[in-house]
C-alpha cells in the first residue's frame, strides 16, 4: 500500500477495467476544451454586462480563487500530496505583483502589457518557491508533508513583518493598477474590466490544467497517487512527477494570489493567513477532490458563504457587538462543520453528488423505454 493514496480517488475518471478509456466522447481533447473555454468566456462577457458592478467584483473574486483551488485539486486530488501552504504561495504571487506594479508605476511606465508582465513575474517567483517546497515535499509522506506545509503557511506571512523594509509589515503594500483602456469607452465600469482581466487569466490557466490532466503527465500524476511502487515499476520517476505536480499547482496558486492582489489593489499578511490555506483545502474537498468542476464549486462557496451569512446576520436583530462576532466567525464555523460532514458522509463532495445524480437519471431512462 502506498502512503500517498489520495483521499477520494474519483473512480469514474480513471480508465475502466478492461482497458477501455473513459473518454468516450471522441474528437480532440484540445478542441473540446477550447470550445468549453470559449463558451465560458462568452458567457462571462454576457454576464458582466447584465449584472451590477458589485456582482462583477464578486465573480472576479471567484475567478481568482478558482485559479488557486484548481491548482490545489490537481495536487491533492490527482497527485495525492496534501498542501496546507497554498495560502503562502498565493501570498508570494500577490507580493510579487505588488512589487512589480509599484516598480513600473514609480518609473512612470504605462501600457496594457505591464499587467500581464507582472502576473507572469508572479507566476515565475511562485514557481521558484514552489519548486523548493516541492523538492522537500517529494521526500515526505502523509502527516509529515502536512506538517511542513502547515509550517510554511504559518511562517511566510510572518516573513512580511520580519522584512518590513521591503514588504512594509502588517500594513502591506498597495498595488497600483491602471484604469481600463480608453478604447472601451470613457464610462466603462471598472468592476467589469476587473472581471474581464481575472476571467481571461483564469480561463487560460484552467485550459492548460485541463489539458495537462488529460495528458501523459496527468496519467503519471494519478499513477503515482494510486501506487508509488507500481508507478516506479512502470518506469515513472516518482519524485520528479511529484515535484512537477507541486510546481504546476504552485504556479496557479501564485496566479490566483496575484489576481486577488490586483482585485483588492493591496496586499497585507493578514489576507494570507493560515485560515486562507485551510479555506482553500476546504473548498476543494467540499467541491469534490480531483475535479476542476469541484474546484469551481469550492471557489463559488468561498465567496458566496460569507456573503450569505452576512445577509442572515443583517436580517436578525442583534446587538452590534454580537453581530460583529457572528459575522466574522459564522462562515468559518459553517465551513469547518461542512468539511467534517462531507468527509464523513459524502466523500466526493458537491461534484460527486451531482455526477451520481446525473448517472442515476441516465440509468433510469433506458429501463423506462424497455
Amino acid at each position, binding site marked *: 500500500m502506498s502512503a500517498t493514496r489520495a483521499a477520494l480517488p474519483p473512480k469514474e475518471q480513471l480508465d475502466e477495467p478492461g482497458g477501455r478509456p473513459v473518454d468516450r466522447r471522441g474528437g480532440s481533447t484540445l478542441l473540446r476544451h477550447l470550445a468549453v473555454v470559449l463558451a465560458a468566456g462568452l458567457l462571462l462577457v454576457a454576464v458582466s454586462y447584465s449584472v451590477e458592478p458589485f456582482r462583477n467584483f464578486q465573480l472576479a473574486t471567484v475567478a481568482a480563487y478558482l485559479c488557486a483551488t484548481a491548482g490545489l485539486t490537481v495536487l491533492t486530488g490527482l497527485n495525492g500530496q496534501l498542501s496546507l501552504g497554498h495560502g503562502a504561495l498565493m501570498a508570494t504571487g500577490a507580493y510579487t505583483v505588488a512589487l512589480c506594479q509599484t516598480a513600473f508605476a514609480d518609473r512612470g511606465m504605462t501600457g496594457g502589457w505591464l499587467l500581464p508582465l507582472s502576473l507572469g513575474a508572479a507566476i515565475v517567483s511562485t514557481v521558484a518557491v514552489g519548486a523548493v517546497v516541492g523538492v522537500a515535499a517529494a521526500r515526505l509522506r502523509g502527516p509529515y508533508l502536512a506538517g511542513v506545509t502547515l509550517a510554511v503557511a504559518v511562517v511566510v506571512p510572518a516573513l512580511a513583518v*520580519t522584512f518590513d523594509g521591503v514588504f512594509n509589515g502588517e500594513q502591506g503594500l498597495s498595488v497600483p493598477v491602471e484604469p481600463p483602456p480608453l478604447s472601451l469607452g470613457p464610462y466603462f465600469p471598472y468592476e467589469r474590466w476587473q472581471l474581464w482581466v481575472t476571467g481571461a487569466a483564469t480561463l487560460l490557466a484552467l485550459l492548460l490544467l485541463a489539458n495537462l490532466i488529460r495528458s501523459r503527465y496527468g496519467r503519471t500524476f494519478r499513477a503515482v497517487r494510486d501506487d508509488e511502487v507500481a508507478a516506479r515499476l512502470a518506469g515513472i520517476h516518482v519524485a520528479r512527477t511529484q515535484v512537477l505536480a507541486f510546481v504546476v499547482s504552485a504556479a496557479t496558486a501564485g496566479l490566483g494570489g496575484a489576481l486577488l492582489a490586483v482585485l483588492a489593489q493591496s496586499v497585507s499578511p493578514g489576507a494570507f493567513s493560515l485560515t486562507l490555506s485551510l479555506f482553500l483545502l476546504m473548498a476543494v474537498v467540499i467541491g469534490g477532490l480531483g475535479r476542476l468542476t469541484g474546484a469551481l464549486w469550492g471557489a463559488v462557496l468561498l465567496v458566496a458563504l460569507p456573503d450569505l451569512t452576512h445577509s442572515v446576520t443583517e436580517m436578525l436583530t442583534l446587538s452590534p457587538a454580537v453581530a460583529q462576532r457572528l459575522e466574522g466567525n459564522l462562515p468559518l464555523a459553517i465551513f469547518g462543520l461542512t468539511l467534517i460532514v462531507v468527509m464523513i458522509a459524502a466523500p466526493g463532495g458537491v461534484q460527486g453528488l451531482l455526477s451520481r445524480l446525473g448517472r442515476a437519471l441516465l440509468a433510469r431512462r433506458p429501463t423506462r423505454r424497455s
Partner: protein
Amino acid sequence: MDRFVFLTVDGLSRGAVYAAFALALVLIWRAARVVNFAQGAMAVAAAYVAYTVSTATGSYWLGFVVAIVAGLLLGALVDRVVMRHVDHASPLNPVIVALGLVLLIQAVLGMVYGSEFRPAEAPFSRSALTVGGVAVLSPYDLFVFATIGVVVSGLAWMFARTPVGLRMRAAAFAPEVSRLLGVNVGGMLTLGWALASGVGALAAMLVLPTELGLHPHAMDLVFVSAFTAAVVGGLDSPPGAVVGGLVVGLLLSYVSGYAGSDLTPLAVLVLLLAVLLVRPGGLFAPVAARRV
C-alpha cells in the same frame, strides 16, 4: 554569560511545555496513526473554559483543574463523535477532518469570547530569582518543570507498569489480537484521545501566561513548534518527543534572544525542513521497511 544562562533556562522551561504538547501528539499517533492537527485548537478551547471558571470563581486552581477535565472530555468527544467515523484508508482523511475541527473550534471560540486577547494569569511570579548575582529561575519556571515532570513520569509509569497501559499498548500495536483477547480496543482508543487532549490542555495552561494571552489562534505557532519537536523525536517515540521539545525550546530561545523574536517562526521552519530532509521519518525513528 548571564544572558546565556537566562536564555538556556527560559528555553528549557519553554521546551518542557513543547515536550508535553509533542507527547500529546505522539500519544494519539501511536494509538490511532493520526496526527491530531486540531490539538492546538482543542487545547485553547480547554483554556477558555478555565478562563471562564477562574473569572467566575476567582480561583486559579479551580480553573486549572477544570481545564484538564475539559481537555479529557473534549478528547473523548472528538474521538467518539468525529474521528471514529472517518475512513482511515488514506492518511489524508483524518488530517483534513482535523483541520475542519480547527476551523470549527476557533470559530465557535471567536463567536463566544470574541477575538480580542484575554489576559492569562500565572499562579506564581514570573520574575527570576537570582543565585549569586545571576538571574536563573523564576518560581513559575519551577512550577512548569515540576508539573511537566510529574505528567511525563506519570504517563511513563502508566504505560509501562499498569494493566490499563498494557491494554492501551496492545490495542495500538495489534488491535485484532487484543480484541480476541478481550481488550476493549475502542475504549482504549478513546482513553488515548482523552489523555492526549488532557495533556495538551495542561500544556496550553502552562504556555499561555508566557505568551500574549488567550486568543482563538494563540496555539497556532505553539502547535507548529510542538509538531517540529515530535518530528525531531520521530513521532513514534515518547522519549524522543521530550528530547525534541527541549531542543526546539532551546533553539527558539537562543534565536529570539540573540537574533530577534521575529525570526523564531522561520527558525522552526528551517529546523523542521532540515530534520525531515536528512531523516524523513524523524531523528529517532527506526529504519522502516518499505511496505509494498
